């Protein structure tokens, strides 16, 4: 008993310094940022030794989501969502594809692996600068076809004004409900095979219900903004997405490759004996077994995409609404326009969005550990 308490004390003493430092420098400062976001710290005189700060409650957040000047921020937020989704799909898809190819143990596999992983060693500023040159309107990628005698491309990778998948911010709630109903129906269709009754009750029914209700009574939903404001996926972001996928697919490849190598050869042989094709093996055995890897890849990539700053800065510079990102907006608002309170509010919004990805993961992990 005494031995145990002593151990505990020792453990506590060893952990105490880092607990204290994290409490102050992580949680303390998050708290401080939340506090700052609820003041009116900004404007002229904000850099004085003792700047004037008054508590204004949630006014900064209201301004960001419904105010006139928050338009740039809303566009950036929409950009970030599209950007995250595309990056996840691209990097995980491509990474998995390369991993499957390398899992066939071609000749020179280790050399190829290094080559694919190498882009990750570059800093974003370096790869951003290179890609900006590659995607210049009259050079790089666009003149590639001329080498085989074709017309050069004219797509403006980083400055196109076109946008697709546009929606009106006024209808934000309706759009949100449609997405929810779409996801529910999708999940329902997938689990139809396994348990039709449960799928109907749990997923399909509510999904169709929400979708129909929004379609019928959507006009009664409150409008999120007093004026029409279109936001969509800007084609100019494609260039940035390409660069990020190039940089990160090697990383997801390494994750999956490690996973594939960890699956015992017996399992593979057994499945082959039972008549599984190559495709079938990956589709039904290998990839489902690597679910934890997929989850961690999603977590890591999503928080990277939400914090993206240097790549965007290097490729399209500040003040480029077409490719804007909340993190960039936060920096400009805080350190260029001296509007510390609004900057803090953007930082907190980003923090909350990132938390929606990470907290469920952490909770799941915690539960799993308690069970196991």
């Amino acid at each position: 008993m005494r031995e145990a308490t002593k151990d505990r004390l020792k453990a506590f003493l060893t952990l105490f310094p880092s607990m204290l430092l994290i409490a102050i420098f992580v949680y303390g400062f998050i708290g401080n940022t939340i506090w700052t976001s609820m003041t009116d710290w900004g404007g002229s005189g904000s850099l004085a030794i003792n700047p004037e700060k008054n508590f204004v409650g949630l006014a900064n957040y209201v301004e960001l989501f419904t105010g006139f000047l928050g338009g740039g921020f809303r566009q950036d937020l929409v950009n970030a969502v599209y950007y995250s989704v595309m990056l996840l799909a691209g990097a995980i898809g491509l990474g998995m594809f390369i991993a499957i190819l390398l899992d066939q143990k071609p000749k020179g596999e280790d050399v190829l692996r290094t080559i694919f992983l190498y882009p990750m060693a570059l800093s974003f500023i370096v790869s951003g600068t290179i890609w900006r040159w590659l995607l210049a309107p009259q050079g790089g990628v666009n003149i590639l076809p001329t080498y085989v005698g074709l017309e050069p491309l004219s797509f403006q990778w980083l400055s196109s004004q076109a946008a697709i998948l546009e929606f009106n911010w006024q209808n934000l709630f309706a759009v949100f409900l449609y997405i929810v109903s779409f996801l529910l129906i999708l999940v329902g269709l997938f689990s139809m095979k396994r348990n039709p009754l449960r799928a109907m009750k749990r997923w399909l029914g509510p999904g169709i219900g929400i979708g129909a209700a929004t379609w019928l009574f959507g006009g009664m939903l409150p409008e999120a903004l007093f004026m029409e404001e279109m936001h969509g996926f800007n084609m100019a972001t494609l260039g940035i997405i390409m660069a990020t996928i190039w940089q990160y697919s090697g990383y997801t490849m390494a994750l999956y490759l490690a996973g594939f190598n960890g699956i015992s050869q017996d399992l593979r042989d057994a499945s082959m004996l039972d008549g599984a094709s190559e495709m079938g093996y990956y589709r039904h055995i290998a990839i489902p077994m690597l679910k934890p890897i997929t989850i961690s890849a999603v977590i890591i990539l999503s928080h990277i995409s939400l914090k993206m700053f240097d790549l965007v800065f290097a490729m399209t510079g500040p003040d480029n609404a077409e490719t804007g990102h909340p993190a960039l907006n936060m920096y400009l608002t805080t350190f260029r326009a001296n509007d510390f309170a609004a900057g803090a509010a953007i930082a907190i919004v980003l923090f909350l969005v990132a938390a929606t990805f990470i907290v469920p993961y952490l909770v799941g992990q915690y539960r799993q550990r308690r069970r196991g």
Partner: protein
Amino acid sequence: MKKAFAKLCLVLVAAMMIAAPQAVQAKELSGDLEIFSWWAGDEGPALDALIKIYKEQNPNVKVINATVTGGSGVNAKAVLKTRMLGGEPPDSFQVHAGQELIGTWVKSDRMEDLTPLFKEQGWMDVFPKGLIKLIGTDKGIWSVPVNIHRSNVMWYVPANLKKWGVTAPKNWDEFFAVAPKLKAAGVTPLALAQNWTANHLWESVALASMGPDNWDALWSGKLKFDSPEGVKAWELMGKVLQYTNADASSLSWQQATDMVIEGRAAFNIMGDWAAGYMVTTKKLVPGKGFGYAASPGTGGEFMFLADSFGLPKGTKNRDNAIAWLKVLGSKEGSDAFNPIKGSISARTDSDLSKYNGYLQSTSADFGKDRVVASLAHGVAANETFMGGFGSVMEMFLKTKNAKAAAMACAQLAQKAGI
């Protein structure tokens, strides 16, 4: 924070104690002088010319030339903020004269009043009255202007215009008359580059649309941004934008100038650093290789911006910094710096024979034109407004909604305290 303040006080007192006896003896200065600026690259030699003069006068002072590169000081300003907030200000730093300095640093009580220096050196008489009013507040004068740039200039190549059969438009109506013709010939009527050059274009367009009196009223808060005049300026801007290149946001201002030189575009509106670029880098002769005129509808108006140096409170080498400011304001320093930088002197008595043809004509204009403040380069409004204006412009480029942009500006002005 308290500790930093205490340190700052300590440094201040120490500086005063050291400064007090030295001020009496003067002359023999020693120690360091750190000059903070964003003049590197093409503009580096101009700064070196000033440092050379300073070194001749004060051979015992070690000059530390701290430049942070990045056009228009984007990076330098961020570094400067870190240093000022950390209680480690450089001895003297470059800043756009006007509200950019006043709104950020003077209102925060971090600058020293330079009125005594201006009086001692007799600068009150050699700098134009209007300029002194714009770089000062009722509490004092806050920086020494080194140069004057003009913002509302339109550039073109005379030979190309002849070939296309057009003349340089005097106002926007004339521009709209010739623009479709140019467009039909496959020429971009007006070359534009990334975001800040759109802000730059806007100030020339708005000045043409509302006139200098309304422009001044706008910045003193007497005219609202969402007034009919304000909305009209944005509508005109929208019309002008129809005749610009589509790949603007991926070009630097030099590339937009190149479009004009190479004959892919007819006109470009840019400040007169474009003259420096075309003369020094492109080796063109003013008047022959390239032509210039006041931007449409702003003839007789001179939209100015100026670089200046100020004296932050609590510097380590205050005396050396004051000696530096004296060099900047002197006729000798000013005439050594400006011909290389491609700008004109802020002093009314500068030696015009040292300047090229373009600068001589600008200098003459500065003497007789109506001088108004530039927005895009920090004279007219503080950083809160400028920062927000960048995003308003982005929204406008996307939506082309004049009414919304004008209303957003009005809200921004309220926030920035205009």
